[in-house]
């Protein structure tokens, strides 16, 4: 069964997945039985009662109460089972255990940002321990997004102007993909992230070192890591191709024509301003779609990114 299931369902890596999958299989198997019956009846009738002549006489059968009640009541009972089963599972999905570990999740066009209790911020990667309920407190800074992890069978819309939450408990270490499933514009299909599940010990270590890991790195390397971690390359290429934003290739010192017609030279302050308040200066030919990184990146990190950008040409 499991190997067969791998063909149509993603791996089940959360505590709730098994129940959802069982219901999924129950409905499909029941449906398949009905469907085979219906198709068999169609073929049999078409074959058996094929028109012999234009003068065929057919019996008058207007209704049959017993039969009609049967085929109303049996499906009704079946769908009520599905209803009850699904609702029970749903309540479980909606009710986070009280001891859940809370992480803030922020969706913005087009990246996922995660903030931990110790102040660490990661973009595009959610680090969690296994066998521990995790509750995400989520909101959006622009339009509606939706946080979806197929491996965990969870999904919740992420709204601007209000919090929503979702919880899960990962059952094994490894990585799972996060998709945005509420259409949010140009790079909607690139708005992905991954959940990195550590063993409990590894998670403690990660927590303790993650925030400090950047400390010893040379600025260029740190900048490169930050660009990757913050998913900058979703919209800015480093090979010169045009994506949603201008390419990073040869960006430093470039003459850039702006939307209002002025020409500016890209320097440290220009880049700093573009990261913190991207809407304040838009390069000609591009849309004002970049989310602001005010509060996500600190001064040291921005300086490191600038140093890294200087090296791309």
């Amino acid at each position, binding site marked *: 069964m499991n190997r067969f299931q791998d063909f*149509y369902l993603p791996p089940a890596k959360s505590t*709730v997945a098994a129940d*959802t999958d069982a*219901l*999924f299989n129950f*409905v*499909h198997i029941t449906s398949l039985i009905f469907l085979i019956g*219906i*198709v068999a009846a*169609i073929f049999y*009738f*078409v074959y058996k*009662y*094929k*028109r*012999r002549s234009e003068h065929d006489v*057919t*019996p*008058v*059968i*207007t*209704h*049959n109460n017993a039969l*009609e009640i049967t085929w*109303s009541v049996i*499906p*009704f009972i079946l*769908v*009520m089972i*599905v*209803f009850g089963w*699904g*609702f*029970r*599972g*749903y309540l*479980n999905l*909606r009710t986070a255990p009280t001891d859940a570990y809370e992480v803030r999740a922020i969706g913005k066009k087009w990246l996922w940002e995660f903030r931990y209790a110790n102040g660490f911020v990661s973009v595009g990667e959610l680090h969690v321990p296994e066998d521990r309920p995790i509750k995400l407190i989520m909101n959006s800074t*622009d*339009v*509606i997004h*939706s946080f*979806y992890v*197929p491996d965990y069978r*969870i*999904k*919740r*819309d992420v*709204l*601007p*102007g*209000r919090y929503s939450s979702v919880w899960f408990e990962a059952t094994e270490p490894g990585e799972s*993909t996060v*998709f945005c*499933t509420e*259409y949010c*514009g140009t790079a*909607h*299909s690139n708005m*992905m992230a991954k959940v990195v599940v550590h063993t409990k010990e590894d998670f403690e270590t990660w927590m303790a070192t993650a925030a400090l890991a950047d400390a010893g790195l040379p600025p260029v390397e740190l900048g490169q890591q930050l660009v990757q971690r913050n998913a900058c390359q979703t919209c800015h290429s480093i090979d010169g191709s045009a994506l949603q934003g201008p390419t990073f290739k040869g960006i430093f010192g470039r003459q850039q024509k702006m939307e209002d017609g002025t020409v500016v030279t890209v320097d440290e302050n220009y880049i700093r301003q573009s990261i913190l308040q991207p809407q304040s200066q838009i390069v000609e030919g591009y849309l004002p779609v970049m989310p602001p990184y005010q509060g996500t990146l600190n001064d040291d990190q921005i300086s490191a990114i600038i140093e890294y950008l200087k090296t791309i040409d």
Partner: protein
Amino acid sequence: MATTSSFTTGKISAETIGGNGVSLGEKEVKKLKIKRFEPVEEPQIHYLNAEKGLWSWLSTVDHKRIGLMYLAAIAVFFLIGGTLAVLLRTELLTPAKTFMDADTYNQIFTLHGAIMIFFFLVPSVPAVLGNFILPIQLGAKDVAFPRLNLASFYIYLIGAIFAFVSITTGGIDTGWTFYTPYSSSTGGNVMMMTLGVFILGFSSILTGVNFIVTIHKLRAPGLTWNKLPLNLWGLYATSIIQILATPVLAITLLLLTMERALGIGIFDPALGGDPVLFQHFFWFYSHPAVYIMIVPGFGIISEVISTFSRKTIFGYWAIALSSLAIAFIGFLVWGHHMFTAGQSSLATMVFSFLTFLVGIPTGIKIFNWLATMYKGSIQLSTPMLYALIFLFQFTIGGFTGVMLGALSVDIHLHDTYYVVAHFHYVMMGGMVMAFLAGLHYWWPKMFGTMYSEFWAKVSATLVFVGFNVTFFPQFIMGAQGMPRRYYNYIDQFQPFHVTSTIGSYIMAVGFTIMAIYLLHALIKGRKASANPWGSRALEWQIPSPAPAHNFDHTPVVLNGPYDYHRPMSEFQMGVADKKH
């Protein structure tokens, strides 16, 4: 041959016609002299040539001509929407860019959805087949308000013009659902498109009003509610939904326009609005709209299966009333589009329960149609072939709907390709197949010609195979987690996408063949007889194509439209001339 006899409408005592006892109830109302009117074969003058010239078409109040003008319009939209679909599928052959960029892709899937739903599916059966056949099935000369009927066609055209302006002046990339705050903040000409859909809504409402009044007031003598063809029950239920639900869409779109144009905060949280409110409003129309699209399809399938099984319909009242039940319960299930959006758990439970409830009458219909075929005399002509394809595909659409109604699983499947496949199985696999069944069924009555049965079957087979190859893989990749409205996707889904694209090409070939043989039939198809299917229904008791005023006599209905055990002579009755 013509037997003239005395007959009274309403409820009267048994009457003798041509030696057969016809029981019609007890109470006496008024006496009518009736005689048999056999339809003329190959009439020289009919509604297509009774008046000539372009102006006679543009200014016509004939419901049949209006139906044909709608047919031409929706055929154009289906061609556009279908071409867009093939472009989308081609783009999805590879992850990331195949031949168009992301913004173009987003605009194209929005247009595909908006055009197919608002400009093709919603008007398809009611405005085309309904307009053409409803008055004839009632034994009436026209709908109750013929001028209003013409007005609704022009309103539809004006709506379409707005949509075209929107497309050519920036386009829209909101998805056909126009979700806020994305739709209130994105570029493009969203306002023009929403105005187009807003205007279109009035066309839908006027058609609904017209049909309800016509069914109530213009039934032929003897055509009591329990003899009403099931197609009319379907259209009746549809009209109720059109009248009650469409205004909500109009209000919603108007509020959206006010927000975009005047900055009044209703849905956009940046202005103090509530984005989820928009979803409630939108689905309050758009879920019933799904039934606007499918319920008239049920009517067609009932007609076709009974005719081609040449047998009394099984469970007449079950089918008729389940259409009404679906119409009413269908109003109360809109929240099942929002299980992940943030409504209360209580609301979610109620919506889930009602969703399952609405599934029951739908299931009952399937069994009734099957039972109708039992011991019938089945002829596998093209309309019947489409009806059987409908049964298969719509059943899959229904079962996967049950899957999506199950709360915990819906959380996983919501907004994935599973949903895309589900609604294509219902809308295209169900509704479009029902429309094609109806089109091929009534084609002889519309144009007085027959299409090539061979090519029709080849086309039906290609459409059937192509459809399933296109959409079945989408169930699998959806269950695996492929989100919808994705321009780019991760590599593991590529085999499914490629299969799906190949399927769409097969379907395109099928529809091309259909266009060719239908056009051929239109121009030089062989003449059709008045009643090529041997149906007992009223519309087949007049010449093909229909006369300009449908009936040259006032028809009198003695039997139900599915009483195949009665001789044909009892179905060709009309009020005799005074001199008889």
